[in-house]
């Protein structure tokens, strides 16, 4: 791929410059369309409760789950609501899961005076062996036990369970199934090599400036200012750069100034101001050369609840003068050259990681695709806008590339589905920690990591 094309001309660096410097035109942008309208909120009203989003989620996924249940357990499987259950009868129930966790941080417990508890420090995982799974449908709830992995599942998932109700009022599960991979999209991918660079977690504004050199190297590679003619011709095939969140580092989030008196904090500037200026300069260099999509992340100056709205262009005055800069929502969905991309900045995956026994980010990413929902834990443990008409996080079509940002390592996998779906799952690593970005080849859905390290003889290119 990249390295194979670049290697033969590596000696070109030692040769004298040619009389006429060659130019490499970047591959033209063709076929971009933004499909993230469901994630763009216009007028926001927070007077509604979250019961609506759960009701719509269940109503929206129920038909698909009933179809899957019939195909898995036979056409004449009995589908019952919880209110119609009869003890001892084998039947299938469709509902939403609720996981009752002892260690789940509860604001009511923290402020309750009778407990006098110190607020619980954040733990990496909140699972315990004593957790219980409860299935809820529109009217009732029932405790689940049996052939179901309590530790692995999280609240908010809709699924179908097959089993029977026992004498003591619990439901004994024999088998369960999720919505499965959504129906496939037609493939219109390009016939020649086209690359998209995925990077996340640039982490500007952090105390240490080590990642700045790597960020500058990344920008130089993409804009073709690094390497010999081989690398430059490869870089000309990069059609787009997607920055998947956490452009600012967590250090910019410090809120010490809130507790201090106003006269002490009059002249102090928020740390994010300097960081956003740096971001603007980096984006300016990128935007002059390649279209860039900027997604907000956990530590970026936008709203906290999912879906996060795009950063405002007034923060990036130099870069937003260029039409190649696109400020987009988190989650982000777009069709690039006929290939459908869908991804988030990683808050959904890391939230599931905290409340499930799954250890691997790629495994969690695959599980969310098979469960048919981008972020089932919203709004329970992850902040979410109170939707009432439809749940935009339900997956209705299968994307070709499904990514999540700010993962601890780079991992990728090509998933094949029964109905001809081909999905490339990519966990984009945190650039400030790993100095690694990903290059996705749109022609054959392969992915390659690209690492920039300041010292050391082995830096893959």
């Amino acid at each position, binding site marked *: 791929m990249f390295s194979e094309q670049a290697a033969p001309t590596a000696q070109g660096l030692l040769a004298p410059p040619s009389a006429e410097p060659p130019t490499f035109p970047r591959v033209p942008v063709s076929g971009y369309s933004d499909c993230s309208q469901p994630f763009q909120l216009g007028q926001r009203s927070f007077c509604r409760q979250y*019961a609506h989003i759960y009701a719509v989620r269940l109503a929206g996924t129920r038909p698909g789950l009933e179809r899957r249940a019939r195909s898995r357990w036979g056409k004449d499987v009995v589908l019952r609501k919880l209110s119609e259950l009869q003890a001892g009868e084998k039947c299938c129930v469709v509902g939403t899961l609720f996981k009752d966790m002892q260690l789940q941080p509860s604001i009511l417990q923290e402020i309750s005076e009778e407990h006098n508890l110190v607020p619980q420090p954040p733990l990496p995982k909140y699972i315990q062996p004593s957790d219980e799974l409860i299935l809820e449908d529109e009217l009732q709830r029932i405790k689940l036990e049996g052939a179901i992995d309590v530790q692995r599942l999280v609240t908010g998932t809709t699924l179908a369970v097959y089993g029977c109700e026992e004498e003591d009022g619990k439901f004994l599960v024999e088998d369960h199934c999720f919505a499965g991979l959504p129906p496939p999209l037609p493939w219109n991918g390009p016939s020649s090599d086209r690359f998209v660079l995925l990077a996340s977690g640039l982490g500007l504004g952090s105390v240490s400036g080590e990642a700045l050199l790597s960020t500058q190297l990344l920008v130089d590679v993409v804009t073709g200012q690094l390497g010999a003619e081989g690398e430059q011709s490869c870089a000309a095939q990069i059609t787009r750069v997607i920055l998947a969140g956490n452009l600012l580092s967590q250090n910019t989030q410090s809120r010490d100034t809130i507790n201090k008196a106003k006269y002490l904090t009059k002249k102090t500037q928020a740390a994010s101001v300097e960081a956003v200026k740096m971001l603007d300069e980096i984006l300016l260099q990128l935007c002059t050369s390649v279209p860039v999509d900027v997604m907000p992340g956990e530590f970026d100056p936008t709203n906290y609840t999912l879906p996060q709205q795009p950063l405002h262009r007034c923060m990036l005055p130099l870069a937003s003068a260029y039409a190649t800069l696109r400020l987009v929502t988190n989650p982000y969905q777009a069709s690039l050259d006929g290939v459908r991309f869908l991804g988030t900045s990683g808050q959904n995956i890391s939230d599931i990681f905290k409340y499930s026994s799954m250890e691997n980010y790629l495994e969690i990413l695959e599980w969310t695709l098979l469960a048919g929902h981008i972020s089932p834990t919203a709004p329970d443990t992850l902040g979410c806008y109170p939707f*009432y008409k439809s749940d935009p996080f339900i997956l209705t079509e299968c994307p070709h590339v499904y990514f999540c940002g700010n993962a601890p390592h780079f991992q990728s996998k090509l998933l094949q589905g029964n109905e001809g779906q081909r999905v490339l799952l990519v966990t984009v690593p945190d650039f400030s920690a790993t100095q690694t970005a990903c290059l996705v080849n749109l022609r054959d859905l392969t992915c390659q990591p690209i690492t920039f390290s300041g010292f050391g003889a082995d830096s893959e290119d």
Partner: protein
Amino acid sequence: MEQPRRITDSFPRRRRRGPGRPPGRLKDKKDKNKVQVKVKVRDSPRAPSPPPPDPALLEMLRRFDLSWEYGPCTGTPRLQRWERAQELGLSPPGPIRDALLEHRDNPDVTYRWVWVGGTG
């Protein structure tokens, strides 16, 4: 030297009354014998208020609120709930929508059934 110009030459002083205040009386000192003219502030004719909806209609709407098939009823106007149920394919009854559109101005009809003395 010309007369010093005042701002009140271009913007004459007008005495403004608040919306809820009683209308002032025009005082004309020269014509004390004449009948004082009272100017009414509100003299636009009011549109006739629509007939109140009958209790049977309100009862039908209450039953629509409490039917669990169409989702939760709190925090959203009834018409929005009806349209959402329609989009999800739950086939809510048509007469409800006609009644909601007919009595659009009446807040008892458009909003869901409220607990007496609660926020719901």
